[in-house]
């Protein structure tokens, strides 16, 4: 094979991957393939096309960097009026915006279209752990903060880290910096560390623990949702155990700020169609997501509330000044 052939093949390869970009919409997953944002873009994009909400397959672009900050910055600075652009978002997006982790960018520089599913937060322990319920664990931490180390899939100060801290705040524990937390590469990794006995508890999302709950390797001692999750009815919520914390990792989209209201409504409508589709319901079940649909104007005010709350919490626990 000569070089020219080789480059033609390479060129063809690259362009093959971009089939349909000409006028099709684009979904930016602000992370490498494999994570939650990537899943959001790929499944929402696929379902929108399958149910005919869009007439061309949606092209997924992975733009990893700065925990989503690179993509956020890119959208605000360079694509502010692009009507054919959607970006995957989750609680991590609003958490980081609240903590000013996107280099000064703020939540009102884009428009949040909606969330169509949420991954409830969980606190899990290994099957042979002495902790039977959330109360016992929180008491143990109050007595000796060093006795329980948490493993989670987000970095220090991230959403997974905040979950146990929110719970501890409810029981009046203030020495929050003493709580041990290690951020590893994703929820599954956090589980292996906990099952292996290197950490005493895992903090993460429901979807991350599903397989391990079924196999019996771990026990979930609390789910951080309003109500018990369908299909996992024997797992008690933190709320019913007397600790009023609801922390769900919603999955949704934002679009650039500079688009017209019509465009905003068009995307909201398409997203609603996905939420109502059977395909999405199947995808939610398979991935441990609970129904959580907030689309359009509702969602924007929800985000504003969440950002305010997380900012206050982060200040209280000293993650930001």
């Amino acid at each position: 094979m000569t070089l020219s052939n080789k480059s033609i093949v390479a060129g063809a390869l690259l362009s093959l991957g971009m089939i349909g970009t000409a006028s099709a919409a684009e979904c930016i997953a602000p992370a490498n393939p494999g994570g939650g944002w990537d899943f959001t873009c790929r499944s929402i994009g696929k379902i929108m096309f399958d149910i005919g909400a869009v007439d061309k397959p949606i092209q997924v672009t992975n733009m990893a960097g700065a925990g989503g900050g690179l993509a956020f910055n890119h959208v605000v600075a360079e694509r502010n009026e692009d009507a054919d652009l959607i970006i995957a978002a989750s609680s991590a997006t609003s958490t980081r915006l609240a903590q000013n982790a996107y280099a000064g960018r703020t939540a009102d520089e884009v428009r949040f279209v909606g969330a169509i599913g949420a991954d409830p937060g969980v606190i899990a322990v290994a099957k042979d752990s002495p902790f039977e319920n959330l109360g016992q664990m929180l008491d143990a931490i109050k007595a000796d903060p060093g006795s329980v180390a948490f493993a989670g899939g987000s970095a220090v100060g991230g959403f997974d880290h905040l979950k146990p801290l929110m719970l501890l705040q409810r029981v009046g524990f203030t020495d929050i910096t003493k709580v041990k937390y290690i951020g590893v590469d994703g929820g599954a990794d956090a589980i292996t560390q906990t099952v292996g006995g290197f950490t005493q508890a895992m903090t993460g999302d429901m979807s991350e623990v599903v397989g391990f709950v079924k196999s019996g390797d771990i026990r979930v001692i609390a789910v951080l949702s309003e109500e018990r999750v369908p299909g996992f009815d024997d797992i008690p919520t933190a709320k019913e155990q007397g600790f009023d914390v609801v922390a769900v990792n919603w999955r949704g989209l934002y679009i650039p700020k500079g688009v017209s209201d019509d465009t905003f409504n068009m995307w909201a409508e398409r997203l609603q169609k996905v939420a109502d589709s059977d395909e999405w319901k199947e995808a939610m079940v398979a991935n441990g997501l609970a129904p959580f649909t907030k689309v359009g104007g509702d969602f924007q005010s929800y985000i504003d509330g969440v950002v305010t709350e997380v900012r206050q919490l982060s200040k209280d626990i000293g993650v930001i000044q």
Partner: protein
Amino acid sequence: MDILSNLALGFSIALSPYTLMLAVIGCFLGTIIGALPGLGPSNGVAILIPITFTLGLDATSALVLMTSVYYGAMYGGRISSILLNIPGDEPALMTTLDGYPMAKQGRAGDALVLSGVASFVGAFLATIGLLLLAPLLARVAYLFGPAEYFALYLLAFCTLGGMASNNQAKAAIAACLGLGIAMVGVDNNSGLPRFTFGNMHLMDGVDFLVAIVGLFAIAEVFFFIEGHGKGSSLGVKLEKVTIPWKDIWTTKWTMLRSSLVGFIAGILPGAGASLGSFLAYMSEKSLAGKDGGFGTGVARGVAAPESGNNAAAGGALVPMLTLGVPGSGTTAVLLALLMTLNITPGPTLFTDRPEVVWGLIASLLIANVVLLLMNVPMVRVFVRVLLVPPWILLPGVTMISFVGIYSLSGSYFDLLLMVGFGILGYVLRKLDVPTVPVILGILLGGHMEDALRRAMVIADGNLMYLFSSPIAIGLWIAAVVGFIAPMFLRGVLAKPQRVSD
């Protein structure tokens, strides 16, 4: 037997003219993706994912196509390592050490065939290991906590001294340089950015593909320009390609040992194929001792890393399928593909979705055979790339590298960074400082630091925690021996001069 009936189920799913065609296409595309510097297996697979949707492939067909690309890329990476001294992807890094010198001796064809066979052995044994032991091996991940991982990475760095250079101090400096570069980015344990100078593009640190392409390909271009096309080390002679039966036979134990080492490295989440090929090469090198001639283009030095990295590629599938923990970048992409197909890997996957698991394993076996057939008889095709004069070849490779890197992040910043690494590579080679340890520093340094920091959080800063398990202690002993032994043996061992330096 359970396994046989399961395997029959797998083949009944994966073996049809249509899926075979997909396997052949996937293997071919994968080999090319692997061979092109800058386009690694992970972005290769990521780029091809949309095609599976556009073609409307079902779960099994999509898996067959993607695993063929995955294994194909692991095979393909060796080609540019051997022919151009530029690793096609990270795991192929170690193959440059002996593969390129071998090619310079006029045995390019031999090196390609031998490494193809070694790749086959590694991948084949790993697939067998996967199907026999996967549920069992998944437990290994539970034995590795922060302390054990730290000791494992320490072992890798301790055996670095003296590698790829006749001067241990220079290798150590290069490794430290790599470790320093690995510190750039957001610190995982405090969430604070380090050495980013407020630049968002540096928040996630330096991508090693950027570093590899810069240090190898771009630096090569600078040398080429400096020498007006004469000083370049591209001067591999091509003779007729035969199958080097003798080399294959004499390296049989090397292949087996390296496959085992690579497979185990692959199973450990996060360690991945690069560590597999590295450990395989280093263990063979120390086994061979002073008469081994590693670094001068010996057959064992070509076979070891290729068996190691292909076995690791198979091993990396174990934690991905059984725990949902990807063992390497590419398996993370495959994980994404599975999730989009509504298949959630985890401890119950083998019982819940046997058709997926066994279909996948069968397609791995098919892909592997296709790749051997494709890579050995067709080796002439790849060797002919060499007949293109360097003044066309080098800019072409560079151009493709730029496109590949740009496709990673879509940012021009990475391209500037890549040129910066090219300048660094040029300066380092002028100073006779080896560049391979720099890459390993970048590749493994971040993991090593994370492991140490996590261990310290768990143990409240008590250093004794690092020696708290038999596995950790064993790894520490191996690391200390690996570091000290070469110092005493330095007088005895006449370090071979690396050809390209």
